[in-house]
């Protein structure tokens, strides 16, 4: 209870912003003033504040606010999927490598090194470029480079945990290696996984936007924040609002995740204070 009352303000602000965003995305069909793909011929590139179109309209006369609400779904879906899939895979690899050691550990770490030798975005661009655009390929591409973080951190912490007296005690009462790993060591690395996941979601959302901006993300007429920015690029001078608002939404989301991550790290790990 005492711990809850001393909750870091960064956690509250970050989680609050994310909760609002999640409500907006899930309830997009209820909140959006217009269907996201409806074209309003008389309102092409209407500026923000035009009656009926709070944030204005895009180059085809579609309501920007509605498109951004639906776009939030893509950002959050991709971000969450990448974190969950990469997290499960990476944590498993890290646990196995850390528990077994020897050649398994060696091979696993060499593989992560190979993946890390690619500039992250470069590998994602190459994979989506080869496999074609669309959300599933996007998620695959982002998972390919993001699982390594989880694997390396979990493995590193496992090596330290193996030497802990309570793990030694478990071993001496005849627990199997699998039991030790799952019951004793996994809870020990849980905090790190949560923190990594928060930052991982931020970078996945940014990467999704960048790939969609390059035309490698969602397929038109669906929208994500990145693809709205991509469409708006050519009309920068005529309709700056199409660039400003989706970018702001992206920035606020990523900032909220960073605040949450920083707050969680200090809250969960007393050593970092």
């Amino acid at each position, binding site marked *: 209870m005492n711990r809850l009352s001393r909750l870091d303000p960064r956690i509250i602000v970050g989680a609050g912003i994310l909760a609002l965003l999640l409500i907006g995305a899930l309830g997009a069909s209820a909140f959006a003033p217009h269907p996201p793909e409806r074209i309003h011929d008389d309102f092409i590139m209407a500026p923000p504040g035009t009656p009926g179109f709070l944030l204005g309209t895009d180059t085809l006369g579609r309501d920007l606010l509605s498109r951004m609400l639906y776009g939030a779904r893509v950002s959050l879906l991709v971000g969450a999927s990448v974190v969950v899939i990469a997290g499960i895979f990476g944590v498993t690899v890290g646990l196995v490598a850390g528990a077994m050691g020897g050649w398994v550990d060696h091979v696993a770490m060499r593989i992560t090194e190979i993946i890390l*030798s*690619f500039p992250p975005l*470069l590998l994602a661009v190459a994979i989506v470029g080869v496999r074609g655009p669309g959300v599933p390929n996007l998620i695959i591409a982002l998972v390919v480079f993001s699982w390594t973080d989880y694997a390396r951190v979990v493995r590193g912490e496992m090596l330290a945990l193996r030497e802990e007296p309570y793990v030694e005690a478990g071993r001496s009462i005849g627990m199997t290696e699998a039991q030790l790993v799952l019951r004793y060591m996994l809870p020990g690395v849980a905090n790190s996984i949560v923190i990594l996941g928060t930052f991982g979601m931020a970078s996945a959302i940014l990467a999704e936007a*960048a790939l969609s*901006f390059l035309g490698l993300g969602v397929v038109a007429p669906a929208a994500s924040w990145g693809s709205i920015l991509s469409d708006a690029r050519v009309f920068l001078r005529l309709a700056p609002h199409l660039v400003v608002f989706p970018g702001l939404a992206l*920035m606020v989301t990523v900032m909220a995740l960073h605040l949450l991550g920083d707050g969680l790290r200090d809250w969960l790990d007393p050593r970092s204070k």
Partner: protein
Amino acid sequence: MTRFVMRRITGGLTVLLGVLFLVFALAHIAPGDPALLIMGLESADPERLADLTVKLGLDRPLWIQFTDYLQGLLRGDLGYSYRAQQPVSVLIFERLPATLELAGAALLLSLVIAVPLGTLAARFQRSGWDYVAGLGTVLGFSLPGFWLGLLLILTFALFFQWLPASGRGGSLMGGVVDLLLRGEFRALGLSLRHLILPAVTLAAPLTALLMRFVRNGVLQALGNDYIRTARAKGLSERCVLFRHALKNALIPMVTVLGLYAGRLLGGAVVIETVFAWPGAGRLMVNAIGRRDFPTLQGAVLVVAVAFIVIHLLLDLAYGWLDPRIRYE
């Protein structure tokens, strides 16, 4: 030292081989016939396709194809772009200098900003200044690079019309040579004017990362006994801060820079598209649009290898700077 160098180089070679295999494998994770993909065609007449499959060796076992690919690389053969009707190596090495120029400028810019500001933030910890620097760091992390680029274009190119919105104004080296040999500043000015916006855009997230790193490093260094000694013997605060604390905080930064170099090269792919900067990243994105597969593969390879080499060099520099590392 020799053993340390050898160990790093063999480690680097193993990783390099894995990287080469991954790039090679890209052709085989694509949906559809690799021969079609390499030709860059959606459909082709079956006979020509069968010819090409044999000619490219695509009917042979995968590992033979891989050794062939490696042998080609050793001869400097990065493949042939059927779309551009040119060897891929020619296409890439035409554009690589532009990317390296952009990434180098961004790196320099972020170091020049982040090192002094990070040091001051550490020295005046918990002051208003530290707070502002911290806010700037969070902002730098959260700004999508390409969005910052668009905003800069909107502000400085379209609204104030101070700087060009896109393109490259000739090579920076060429400009410097012009200035030195002929005393002519025009070429250098033109290339700098084009370089400013993309370099600032690319540098922003890196500056945030480095600032946090320098701040934490200096903060840690300031807690050491040798700092107390330096203060006790009456050195000026500036000398203590920059000579003693900062210098020791900077050594581990060498390896961090290696990792960040990769972010720069990856970020360049997007930023080059925003500013129509004629570099390797833009070549890659255009190649995807044209389904020019060999060019994509070659560009990925060259950038990844450049990253590995930079990383390895910095790793070796780290061992040279900090003798403790060599004997680990």
